């Protein structure tokens, strides 16, 4: 990167442990002005990354939670016909019924384009939407503009947002979609990395307890036949429960006494399997 470029660089945020490779990828994507597509199993911190970038760069974060039935236009803007009908019938609002623009509401992408400052736009779980949504959305993000048909107006981004897109890989994304993104796959954190993540959330926790928990956690992730493996979020919640229970001691955990397994395993079949396989 040339010195003259006044580009903020993403480093790390207070509650997010970042590996160097990922930081580089985020910075390259920002410099190339490309959306960054993040894949990885749940609990690898894809969504958290967007929060961390926003925090680190001091930008507002706008989150578009993608739903399966979602139409792209909902993410861009909505024409609030109901309010307009209401206003025209009762005529008691400050809005001008003859001005359709008064009834246009920006969706999440619209908000990101019209914001006063550069924002981080997180498009969460893109794989839930259908292919048309994905491709149309990338056109919009490519051109950084969209049309509002009702008022024949084009909205152009005032500041190009930093776009982070996440996918749980439920569906394959189309080639045109992938072609317009940078891509990274976040692997599940190894024990070393996880220790650092835990330390950020529980700075005062007894080191022995953390070690006992982590070793139990990774052992439980390896259990045969478990469908939904516990992830980082479950681990942190589990630790939270263990911390408040005065009866929990590291020594007990290492001998295989594992309380509150229900926090780690959300599916009852998994829980049963874990209880059966973990030594009582």
């Amino acid at each position, binding site marked *: 990167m040339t010195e003259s470029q006044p580009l903020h660089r993403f480093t790390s945020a207070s509650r997010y442990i970042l590996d160097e490779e990922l930081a580089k990828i985020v910075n390259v994507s920002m410099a190339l002005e490309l959306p960054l597509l993040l894949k990885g199993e749940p609990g690898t911190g894809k969504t958290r990354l967007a929060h961390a970038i926003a925090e680190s760069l001091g930008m507002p974060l706008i989150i578009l939670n993608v739903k399966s039935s979602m139409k792209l236009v909902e993410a861009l803007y909505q024409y609030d016909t109901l309010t307009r009908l209401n206003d025209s019938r009762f005529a008691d609002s400050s809005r001008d019924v003859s001005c359709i623009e008064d009834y246009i509401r920006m969706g999440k992408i619209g908000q990101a384009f019209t914001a006063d400052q550069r924002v981080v736009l997180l498009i969460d779980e893109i794989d839930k939407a259908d292919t048309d949504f994905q491709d149309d959305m990338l056109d919009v993000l490519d051109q950084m503009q969209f049309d509002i048909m009702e008022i024949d107006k084009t909205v152009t981004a005032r500041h190009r947002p930093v776009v982070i897109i996440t996918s749980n890989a439920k569906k394959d994304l189309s*080639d045109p979609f992938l072609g317009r993104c940078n*891509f990274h796959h976040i692997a599940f954190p190894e*024990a070393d990395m996880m220790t650092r993540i835990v330390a950020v959330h529980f700075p005062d926790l007894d080191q022995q307890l953390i070690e006992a928990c982590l070793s139990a956690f990774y052992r439980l992730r390896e259990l045969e*036949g478990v469908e939904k493996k516990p992830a980082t979020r479950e681990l942190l919640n589990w630790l939270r429960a263990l911390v408040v229970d005065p009866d929990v001691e590291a020594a007990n955990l290492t001998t295989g006494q594992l309380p509150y397994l229900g926090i780690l395993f959300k599916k009852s079949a998994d829980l049963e399997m874990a209880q059966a396989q973990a030594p009582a």
Partner: protein
Amino acid sequence: MFRPFFYALRDRGIMVSPTAFLRLQRALAMGLVQSLDDLYTVARTVLVKSERDFDAYDQLFAEHFAEAVHSAEDSVDLDQELRDQIEKWLKKPKKPDASVEPGAEQSERLSPEELEQYFSDRLNDQKEEHHGGRKWIGTGGVSPVGHSGQRPGGMRIGGISRNRSAMQVALERRYRDYSRGATLTRGQVGEALKRLRHLMPSGPRDDLNIDSTIYQTMRNGGEIELVFDRRLADRLKVILLIDNGGWSMEAHVPTVQALFNHARDQFQNLDIHYFHNTIHERVWNDPERVHHPIPFTQLLARDPQSRLIIVGDASMAPEELLHAGPSFTLRRVSSQAGIERLQALARAYRHTVWLNPLSPSLWPYGQTINMINKIFPMFSLSLDGLEQAVHHLMHS
């Protein structure tokens, strides 16, 4: 240097688009790449769009840019089984053991050759995991091999190093498990099988199609014409037959079980049966193949539109497949040769595939594999194979 890399990637099946390649050039021009490490990360981010290609990318990167670094960086080429074993030992890292005084060996740095020798010696005599200490492969401690220890100039195995070079990273093959040819893991199975889902309109026409209603109403000059559709429903019927006997299938049975469990949620009509080697006069509903036999004739008599998926290594003594009558190896009298029954199945069902857990490179050497391959389209039990199989089932 970069253009051959681009074509090498494409030759390896990583469909790097020219746009992406130009984008990499732009990144280079912008000064985003200052080192080989940067190149590794930036090029992968820009060029490679699936974690399944990461492993191939790593290998190509290492091959291609190896000249740029010293060849001494080559990692020891470990046998996979050995690697798994070692990874297991290293899974539970311990902090450096303060009780072990760094001895004289701390100061003596081993040459790469010595290090490799040391490592393979330890592999020969080490039988269990070790933490701390000064000799064995393990975590903590001051032995020259392992991780989370304190031995300068040692060989790191497993764990995370703070300062890996791009070449080391590339050679690590940390994405091997994601690669296209890798054997399926549970998580991937569900993803791949979801594509088997086939929504077809069925049931009463009670779903109002608003778009067509508006269009038809306009065509009618404003006279309202309501258009109703049938609801979309999953009508796909699937018959899964799994070979759950024999050593070469053993390792794959849990994965295939997971395949079944995932698939169960997806179809209303899913029949799972078990067999051993090939299909004779019955298959079983219970994995033990004891309690709930289903006669072969019944297996033939299902809806011909059903998708028939057979999972097995297709490997057996040729006579078991070819001969009717009493079998020498099994207490079984068969009125019909196995191969005839398989042919009958292939005639009864239009959409059939055989998934084979054995590596496709081995198929030409198996006599019975060849015979069965002629009856059923055979795909490997890998993510790619499953995808091809699903595609075949939906479009054949």
